[in-house]
């Protein structure tokens, strides 16, 4: 975490908006692309400019400051405009592309995986893909599967701004998975220029009995569960993963080697997922210090959408802090340390 000056209590969406404004001011090669990012495009003649403010306010005001060349509304053509971004990036621009929800990502799958993920590697460095793809939703494991893409999930407004800045400045393609659950959450955010380094996790709370690993919005659940566990006399360390691919194996390993236990809390589908991948890696890197098998807390294996269809669906589907605490308590009751 680099640099900081004045701080303001800032909402998550506004932190993303501030990051874009800052980077567009700083670097003329940054171009914003996506559906409705300008809010009612093509109606400037009728006085409608920024009439809607972009999806969830993330791009609010940008069209007025930077104009339609750099804040470019696209047709509903996710594959088309993501591939277009690859062309811009190959020529030195830094497109920031809004794929509104992760459910829309499969429409552009070829462009993301065959084109954007592979181009730097397959061209042996002749071409770079400095693209930021930003999306709302938790279906990140499938994207993390592809080498060549950096995947990040901010856990609060502070990391949202810092990771967005890092993503835009990176010469590698970065996919940002924002959580709608965090949209109106607030945090102290530096007004000025700072970035959260790609590839690094952060330890948010020190503990000795169990490591709770949060991914994006589940980090808040881990902190809540850690507070509950403290009441019960169990000391939980909370690690915030932040970069999902390639993730920070040393930091997570160090934590688990200290506590001997790992609970990964993940909102993504469970099979072939990031959470199980982390458990498998950590089982090897912390094997001689493990007091219990690493476990995951995830939704059940049903193809529900990340946008909740109903309150009942949400209650059934997503893990909560109580469930995280219960799982941690269960594995803390095993192994030599707690017998």
């Amino acid at each position, binding site marked *: 975490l680099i640099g900081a000056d004045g701080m303001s209590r800032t909402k998550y969406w506004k932190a993303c908006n501030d990051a874009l404004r800052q980077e567009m001011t700083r670097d003329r090669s940054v*171009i914003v692309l996506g559906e409705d990012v300008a809010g009612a495009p093509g109606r400037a003649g009728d006085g409608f400019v920024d009439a809607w403010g972009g999806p969830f306010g993330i791009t609010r005001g940008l069209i007025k400051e930077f104009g339609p060349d750099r804040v470019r509304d696209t*047709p509903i053509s996710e594959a088309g405009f993501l*591939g*277009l971004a690859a062309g811009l990036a190959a020529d030195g621009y830094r497109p920031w592309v809004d794929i509104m929800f992760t459910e829309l990502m499969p429409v552009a799958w070829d*462009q993301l995986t065959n084109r954007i993920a592979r181009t730097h590697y397959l061209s042996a460095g002749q071409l770079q893909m400095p693209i930021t793809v930003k999306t709302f939703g938790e279906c990140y494991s499938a994207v993390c599967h592809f080498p060549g893409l950096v995947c990040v999930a901010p856990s609060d407004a502070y990391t949202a701004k810092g990771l967005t800045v890092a993503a835009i400045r990176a010469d*590698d393609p970065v996919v940002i998975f924002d959580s709608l659950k965090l949209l109106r959450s607030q945090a102290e955010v530096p007004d000025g220029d700072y970035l959260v380094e790609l590839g690094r996790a952060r330890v948010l709370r020190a503990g000795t009995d169990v490591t709770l690993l949060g991914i994006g919005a589940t980090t808040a659940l881990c902190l809540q569960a850690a507070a509950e566990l403290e009441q019960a006399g169990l000391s939980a360390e909370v690690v915030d993963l932040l970069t999902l691919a390639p*993730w920070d194996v040393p930091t997570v390993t160090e934590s688990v080697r200290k506590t001997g236990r790992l609970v990964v809390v993940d909102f993504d589908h469970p099979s072939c997922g990031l959470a199980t991948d982390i458990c498998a890696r950590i089982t090897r890197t912390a094997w001689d210090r493990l007091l219990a098998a690493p476990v995951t807390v995830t939704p059940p294996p049903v193809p529900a959408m990340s946008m909740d269809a109903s309150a009942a669906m949400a209650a059934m589907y997503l893990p909560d802090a109580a469930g995280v605490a219960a799982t941690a308590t269960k594995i803390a009751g095993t192994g030599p340390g707690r017998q």
Partner: protein
Amino acid sequence: MSLCREFETTLVAYASKDGQPIGHPQAGQEAVAAGVCAALVPGDRVLSTHRAHGHAVAIGCDLDRLALELYGSGEGTCRGRAGEMYVSQPDVGYFGGTQIVAGNLPMATGLALSAKLSGRDRIAVAFVGDGGVNQGVFGEALNLAAIWSLPVIFVVENNGYAQTTSTEYATAGRIVDRGAAYGISSTAVDGQSALQVHDVIREARQRAARGDGPTLVEARTYRYEGHYYGDQHRRYRTQAEFESWLARDPIALLRQVAIEAGVDEGALAAITAQARDQCVAAFERARGGREAMLADLLDGVFTDPSLDRR
């Protein structure tokens, strides 16, 4: 054109002997690649399909390094990582092919938008086959190019077959009409005539460069081999059809035009001989090239080396 033909002939001869992949043959289609590339200027960007090596040769990729790349050598254009489909050499304007038949059209619109935003006299060309016109991104890319009036030319190489499936069977209407549906200037051209292709592309390039937007060109052509080398293509193509296209070989047609225009036959033969020598030398070098090593293959996933090998 001769260089495209000789490159493939030499590739087939050497790779068959050496157990190397031959990829997707383009013999018969050279007039499109050569006609298009001859009408471009340095700085223009070209994207290919997976029938790619003809385009790579026509735009001027380094033949020695291209042959090494096809041989999987660490000394190849892309250190032996890319092979035929993804090999690229951007310093000559060649941004590579793709497995996905229309997959490169969106990227071409991005390269064109880049040219437009930066105000450079530069255009993008995307080759696509008749199979590619039935993928969704074909329409998406045409639409983007049209609404933003982008300096891009979509060149449809209609060789009559998508793998083994005939265009007649798989494609509704006329391909050239699909451009018109988006309000894009669209032309059908004899893809066996390098001169006709060249003229149409030169005009399209001028239109794009003066800000009048994209063009779609449908070039009717034919591949002499199968979809891949070894494909039993005569099982799905008649003898009569095959012969009718052999009779309109693009190199022979241009040679005839040249001779009628008074070009010396000896000079034409020298062009072919020189092309052959160049290709033989390239594949002799490829045969002796250093194999790709782990360092060629494991590093450079990311530009930031701290993210590699995790």
